[in-house]
C-alpha cells in the first residue's frame, strides 16, 4: 500500500517536473540567457569597430546616471530626458488608443455575431501589409501637401497647411495607428463578457448612468483596460521605426538612441546599458500590474465569504 502510494507520489513529482521543464528551458533560453548577455555587456568597454572588449567599465551607467567624466564617456542629462520623453509619448499613445478603442469595443460587442467577427477581422487586417509601407503611407497623408492638409484646406478649416509631419504629434498618431489592435483585443474580450443584467440591476436600484459606469462597468472592464494599456505601452516605449519615419528623427525616442549606439556609434555596451533602463522600466510596470491583479483576487476572495454570511 505504502509502496504504491510512494510510486504515485513519485509519478506526480515526475509529471510536475516534466510540465515545469518546458517553460523553464524556454525562459532560460529565450529570456534569461539573452538578458544576462546584455547585463554583462553593460559592464564592458566598447570594441573599436563594434562588439566589446573584455575590460570592466562602470562608465556606461555613469554616462546615464551622472558620474562619468572622461574624454569618451561624459555624463549628460540628455539620456534621462530622452527616456522621460519616450515615457511621455508612450503614455500619450496609450491614452489615445484607449479613448478610441473603448467606445468602439462597446459598439462592436453590441453587434450581431456575424458582424462582430467581421469587425475583429477588419482590426487585424493591417497586419497583412508591411509596417514600413503603412508608415510611408502616413508620411504621404500627413505632409504639408498631403491628403489631410489638402482636405482641410479644401474645406476651409485651415488657411495654412498644418505642421504635423516630423513632430511629436505625428509620432503619437503613427504609434496609435500601429498599436490600436493591441488595445482593442483585450478591451473587447473584457467588454464582451460584461453581464448586461448587472447594468440593468444598477439602473433598477436607482443609479445614474455615470454612477453605473463608474461603479459597475469601469471596475468590470478594468482588467481589459490595464492589460491593453500595458501591451501598448511596452512596445511604444522602445519603438524606433515610427519616430524615425514620422518624427523625421527629430523626435528622438530611447529606441532610436539604442539603435544608434549599436550601428553608427559602434558602442554596444552603452546601447546595452540604455536597453537595461528600458527593461527596468518595463519590469517595474509589470510588477505593479501583478500586484494590482493579486490584490483584486484577494479582495474577491475576502468578499465572497462575507456575502455568504449575510445571506
Amino acid at each position, binding site marked *: 500500500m505504502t509502496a504504491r502510494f510512494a510510486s504515485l507520489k513519485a509519478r506526480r513529482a515526475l509529471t510536475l517536473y516534466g510540465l515545469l521543464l518546458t517553460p523553464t528551458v524556454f525562459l532560460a533560453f529565450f529570456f534569461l540567457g539573452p538578458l544576462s548577455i546584455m547585463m554583462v555587456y553593460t559592464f564592458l568597454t566598447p570594441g573599436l569597430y*563594434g562588439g566589446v572588449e573584455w575590460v570592466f567599465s562602470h562608465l556606461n551607467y555613469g554616462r546615464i546616471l551622472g558620474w562619468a567624466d572622461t574624454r569618451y564617456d561624459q555624463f549628460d542629462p*540628455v*539620456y534621462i530626458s*530622452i527616456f522621460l520623453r519616450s515615457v511621455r509619448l508612450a503614455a500619450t499613445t496609450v491614452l489615445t488608443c484607449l479613448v478610441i478603442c473603448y467606445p468602439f469595443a462597446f459598439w462592436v460587442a453590441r453587434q450581431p455575431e456575424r458582424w462582430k467577427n467581421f469587425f475583429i477581422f477588419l482590426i487585424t487586417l493591417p497586419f497583412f501589409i508591411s509596417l514600413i509601407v503603412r508608415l510611408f503611407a502616413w508620411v504621404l497623408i500627413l505632409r*504639408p*501637401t498631403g491628403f489631410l492638409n489638402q482636405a482641410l484646406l479644401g474645406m476651409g478649416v485651415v488657411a495654412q497647411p498644418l505642421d504635423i509631419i516630423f513632430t511629436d504629434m505625428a509620432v503619437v498618431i503613427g504609434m496609435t495607428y500601429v498599436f490600436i489592435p493591441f488595445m482593442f483585443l483585450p478591451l473587447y474580450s473584457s467588454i464582451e463578457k460584461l453581464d448586461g443584467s448587472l447594468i440593468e440591476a444598477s439602473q433598477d436600484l436607482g443609479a445614474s448612468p455615470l454612477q453605473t459606469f463608474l461603479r459597475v462597468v469601469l471596475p468590470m472592464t478594468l482588467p481589459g483596460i490595464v492589460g491593453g494599456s500595458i501591451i501598448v505601452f511596452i512596445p511604444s516605449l522602445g519603438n524606433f521605426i515610427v519616430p524615425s519615419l514620422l518624427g523625421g528623427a527629430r523626435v528622438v525616442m530611447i529606441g532610436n538612441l539604442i539603435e*544608434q549606439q549599436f550601428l553608427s556609434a559602434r558602442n554596444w555596451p552603452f546601447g546595452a546599458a540604455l536597453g537595461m533602463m528600458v527593461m527596468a522600466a518595463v519590469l517595474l510596470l509589470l510588477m505593479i500590474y501583478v500586484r494590482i491583479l493579486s490584490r483584486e483576487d484577494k479582495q474577491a476572495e475576502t468578499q465572497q465569504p462575507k456575502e455568504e454570511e449575510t445571506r
Partner: protein
Amino acid sequence: MTHTSVRCVVTAVFTVAALTAAPASAKAEGELNLYNWGDYINPEVLTRFTEETGIKVNLDTYGSNEEMLAKIQAGATGYDIVFPSVHMHDIMFQLGLLAKTDIGSDPAFKNIDPQFIRAKTDPNAEYCLPYSWGTVGIVYNQQKVDKMDGWEDFLALADKGEKVILLDDLRETIGIGHIMNGTSVNSTDPEEIKAAADYILERKGNVSAFTYDSVPLVQAGDVAAAHWYVGANIFVKQAPDILAYVIPEEGATMYQEDMCVLKSAPNMDNANRFLRFYLQPEIAALNVKQQLNGTANRAAMEFIPEDIANNETIYPPQDVMDKLQIFEDLGRDLQLYNSEWVRVKTAQ
C-alpha cells in the same frame, strides 16, 4: 502512411539532397555573390558580365557601412565582393577581412586616376579597386528657392519661413558645421566638434527633419531643400524644371566606395575576374550612365554621354574638387561626435 505523407517525405528528402548538392554544382557552373549598397550598380553591368563569362551573379544589398560590417563580422559567409566606403575599407583591412587581389598591378589599372586610391592601408591598390564617388550637396526646389549657392543660402531659407531637411548621419551633418567654421570634417578636437555641432544646433529651428527620404518631399514642395547626394541628379533629370542639385560653394564632403574581395569569398577566382571586368572603360561608363555618379576610370570618360560628362555637379572642375573633404575613420574618437549628435538631435 497515406499517399500524401509519403509524397511529402519523398519531396523533403529530395529537397534536402538538392540543397546540400546546390553549392557544389553551383561552383562548377560559376557564381558570384555581390553585397552592395541598394541601387548602387547598373543591373546591365551584371548581365553583361554573365553574358561574357557565363557566371551567374547574385546581388544582396545593405543600407550602411555599419550594417555590412556587422553582418560580415557576425559570420555571414557566401559573399564574394563588398563595396565599403574608403574609411570602412581601412577598417576592414585592419580587421583582416579583405583578400589580396593585386588589382593595382593589372595593366588596365593605369586608367585609374591615382587621386582615387585613397585608403591609407592600401596605397598601392593591392586589395581593392576604386569603384565610384560623388559629392554630398544640396537638392532644392527651384520654384521655392531663388538662389542657392551653398550652406549659407540653405540655412537662410528658414528666415523666409521655408523648411529644410538634413541627413540623418552624424558625420555628414556635423560636417556642415565644420565646413562653415573652417575646421576639418575629420577633426578630433572636442572643442572644434562642439563648435561644429553648435553651428547646426543654433539653426535647428530651420530643420524640419533628419532623414534620407527627402527627395520626394523636396519635389512636392513640402520642404524647399535637402542635404543629399549627387545621385539626386537622377531625380533632377526626371524633373528638370522643379529640382536642381548644387555643390555648396563653401565646400562639401565627398564619398567614395571601393570594390573589395572578402577573404572568406567562396568564389575567389570569379571575384577577381569581376574586378578586372570592371576595369574596362566601357563597363565603368555603362555604370555611370545609369548611376549618374563619378568614376575613377579616366579612360571611361570618352564613353560617358556628354550631358553627364559635362555636368559640373557630377564631374566638378579641379578647384571645386580640391575643396571636397572625405571622411576618415576616427576610431575611438567617433564617440566625441556621437555625444554631440545626440545633443543636436534632442534639442527642441
